[in-house]
Every structure is written in structure tokens, then in C-alpha cells.
């Protein structure tokens, strides 16, 4: 699904936190949104997901039978796990609950959480919760997948699993994926294109490794030792 943002503005208490004139996400691509804390990444995803309404401007969905917002899956930055088993958390979003327990189990396996399936979701650790949240979002097979820092608090092995699952969702159902991250290597590993936002506006956009270099040139000390690309450390 193709997504176009036109003249999106959003202010909180008079402070403009998002101001995007024009931004297009092409169908079937993976996008990484980068930027410092408070730059507006979450706000942007929430507006695309329809959780929040922009003060002005519009979000247009194109292609894929015009189902629009019903084709969206969105994973919030702070995952909320329902007070039910891990398995039920995943099953909840799947339409046909009785037939799809295999599908749900498969999703849990992909994030390494299958052994928790019968456990209550409220008792999970922070990283475990994030993995379950990723599984229950990606299992839906939607055409537009919005992930707000989907692997920000997981160990490196789980990060690899989540990344692999995201790629698979993109490959298998041709989903457009937009995720935010504070991990430049992850952006470089995953994305076709990186978008850098600062104070709510788009600062840069393009090849992730080029963005990586631009950022690294500006803050050489911070980026020292970090590498971009498929072979880099999961750091």
C-alpha cells in the first residue's frame, strides 16, 4: 500500500511538533524513521495509523482494494499486553480465532516466545512483552505495517528474530513497512530508505548508509566504532 502525507501539521499546547509538507511511502518498501527523542517519530506513526488526527493536512492511502485504514497494523512504542495468555494476545487480532491457533503459534515461534504461550501476558519482562507485541502485529499480514521502535528493549538474538520477521512480512505479503529506531545500524540493515526527522520536520531522506555517514560525520565521537550494513554488529 502506498501512503502519501500532505501538509501534515500537529501541535500540542501551541507547540508545533510535526510539520510535514509532503512525504510518500512507496508500496512494498521498508522505511526507517530516525531522529532524536521528541523529534516527532511517534506522533508521525500515530497520525498515519489514525490514532491521532492531524491539525491540518491529510494522509492518503493508495492501492490494494482501497481498504485503507483497515489494512494497517500498528505497534505502539510502549507495548500493552492484555491480561490473558500470550497465545490469546496473538489470537485476538486474527479474525478466525478457532482455525488460526497454528498461525499464532508460528508467529510466537518466529520471535522465540512459543514456550510462553500459556503464560499470562501481564507477567512478561519488558523485552518479552515487546517480542509478543511484534508477533501479534506482524501475524496480521496487513499491507501497511507501522512499528514504533519494535526492537528497542530486546536482546541481540531477539532483535535478529524480529528483524527477520519484519523482512518476511514485507516479502511475503508485500507490506509497506515503516518503523522508527534509534539504532543506525538497524536502519541500515533493514530499510530501503531512511528518513531523518528533527523538530517535526524532515531533515534528510535517502539511502540508509548515506544517512549513516552524514550522521557519523557530524558526531564522529558518538558514531565511532559503529558500522552500517548487513554484516554489522547488532549494537
Amino acid at each position, binding site marked *: 500500500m502506498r501512503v502519501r502525507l500532505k501538509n501534515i501539521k500537529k501541535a500540542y499546547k501551541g507547540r508545533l511538533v510535526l510539520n510535514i509538507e509532503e512525504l510518500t511511502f512507496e508500496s512494498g518498501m521498508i522505511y526507517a524513521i530516525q531522529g532524536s527523542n521528541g523529534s516527532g517519530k511517534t506522533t508521525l506513526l500515530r497520525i498515519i*495509523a489514525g*490514532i491521532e488526527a492531524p491539525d491540518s493536512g491529510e494522509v492518503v492511502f493508495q492501492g490494494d482494494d482501497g481498504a485503507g485504514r483497515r489494512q494497517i*497494523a*500498528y*505497534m*505502539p512504542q510502549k507495548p*500493552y499486553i*492484555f*491480561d*490473558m495468555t500470550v497465545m490469546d494476545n496473538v489470537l485476538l487480532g486474527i479474525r478466525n480465532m478457532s482455525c488460526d491457533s497454528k498461525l499464532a503459534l508460528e508467529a510466537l515461534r518466529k520471535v522465540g516466545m512459543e514456550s510462553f504461550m500459556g503464560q499470562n501476558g501481564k507477567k512478561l519482562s519488558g523485552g518479552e512483552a515487546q517480542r509478543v507485541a511484534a508477533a501479534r502485529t506482524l501475524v496480521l499480514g496487513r499491507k501497511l505495517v507501522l512499528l514504533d521502535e519494535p526492537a528497542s528493549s530486546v536482546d541481540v538474538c531477539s532483535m535478529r528474530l524480529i528483524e527477520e520477521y519484519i523482512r518476511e512480512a514485507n516479502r511475503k505479503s508485500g507490506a509497506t513497512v515503516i518503523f522508527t529506531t534509534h539504532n543506525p545500524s538497524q536502519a541500515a540493515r533493514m530499510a530501503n530508505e531512511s528518513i531523518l526527522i528533527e523538530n517535526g520536520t524532515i531533515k534528510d531522506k535517502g539511502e540508509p548508509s548515506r544517512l549513516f555517514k552524514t550522521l557519523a560525520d557530524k558526531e564522529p565521537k558518538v558514531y565511532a566504532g559503529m558500522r552500517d550494513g548487513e554484516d554489522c554488529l547488532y549494537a
Partner: protein
Amino acid sequence: MENIFLSLREAWRLIVSFDNEIYGIIALSLIVSVLSSALAGILGMPLGILLGSRDFAGRRAIIRVVQTLMGLPPVVAGLMVYMLLSRKGPMGSLGLLFTPSAMIAAQVLIVLPVITGLTAAAVKLKSQSVLETCKGMGLGRLKTMLVLVHECRYPVISAFMAGYGRAISEVGAVMLVGGNIQYETRVMTTAIVLETGKGNFERALALGVILLLLSFSINWFMQRFQEDS
């Protein structure tokens, strides 16, 4: 000290004597309070969920009113129902004054704001993250509401219990609209008032102890519906 001991003994004697009047009073207390909190719950829980999860014009104003009414003195609620049901009142022809129905009506008025207000506050705490997550998963309206209720079930049950507690313990409203008529509208709290007035402190305190025991056992039973117990 001796007094308390005597009344505890009297309480025990009353319980085991299967005194018809006492059991009638206990039964009526329970029936009136359970029915009034059930009715208030049927109305108040959905209202509270609505107030706690939706944003609409006038929501804040309604919450203010509900919060104010949470402290409504029972006698005032009783007075309102009394005026409605008294012979010259707008619903006087129903002849409901000094019947258990009138007592239930007055208690609904007292309990409804309590259940509504506490439910709204509980739902408000969780609604944003629950609704956002449900929407992110593309759940429909009905499923989203069911999930929200599921996530808030413990505090909502607590809200109901708080309402029930207020109903069974109040005396002003049932006294006013019930009239404390023997064998008809006498409940535990009004009986306590009466016995105290007559100087029968043992009997009064005995009823108080029974009331307390009753609350205790109901709370004990309800614990199994509470979180992490």
C-alpha cells in the same frame, strides 16, 4: 468493655436463635442493597465505561456532576424520592412510599454516582493504551469494548462493591422513604437506630456486629475476583 462482651454474646444468641424478625431484617437489608446496587451497576458501569473511554463534548461537566453526587448525603437522596412518591408528589399515585421499592429507588440514587464515578476513573487509567493497541490491531468496535471491559474488570468489580457497601450501610434514605416499619421496611441500619433510641444497646450493637460480619463474609467471597489473590 463488659458492655461489648455482653453485646457480642447477644449477637451470637440472636444469630443462633433463628429469631424470625432478625432474619427478616437481615434478608430485607440484603435484598434492598443487592437489588439497588445491581440496578445502579447495570446503569452505572456502561456509563462509567463511556465516560472513561470516550471523549465527547460535555464529558468533563458530567464527570464533575457525578463526582459531586458521589458525596450525596443519603437523607437528601431519600428526601428527593420521598417528594416524588409522597401522596401529593408526581408519582404519588403509585403508592410506593414506605415500601421496599421506594427504598431501592432511593439507594439507586445514592449508589449510581459511586459506581459510575469509580468505574470511569478506573477505565480512564487504562483506556488510552488499550484503545490504541486495539486500534493498532484493527479490532472492531465491539471486540475493542469487550477487551476494555476485560482489562478493567477488577477495578470495575471493586467499584460495584464500593457501591454495595454504601447501600447496605446507609440509614438516612431507607429511614425516610421506608419508614422503618416492623416486618415491612425495617432493615439493619434502621433497626440499630431504633434499638439505640430505646436504650437497647446490646441489641443495637448485636445488629452492628451482624452487619459487620455480613460485610466481612461478602468481601471475603469477592476477594476471589480481585487481582492477584
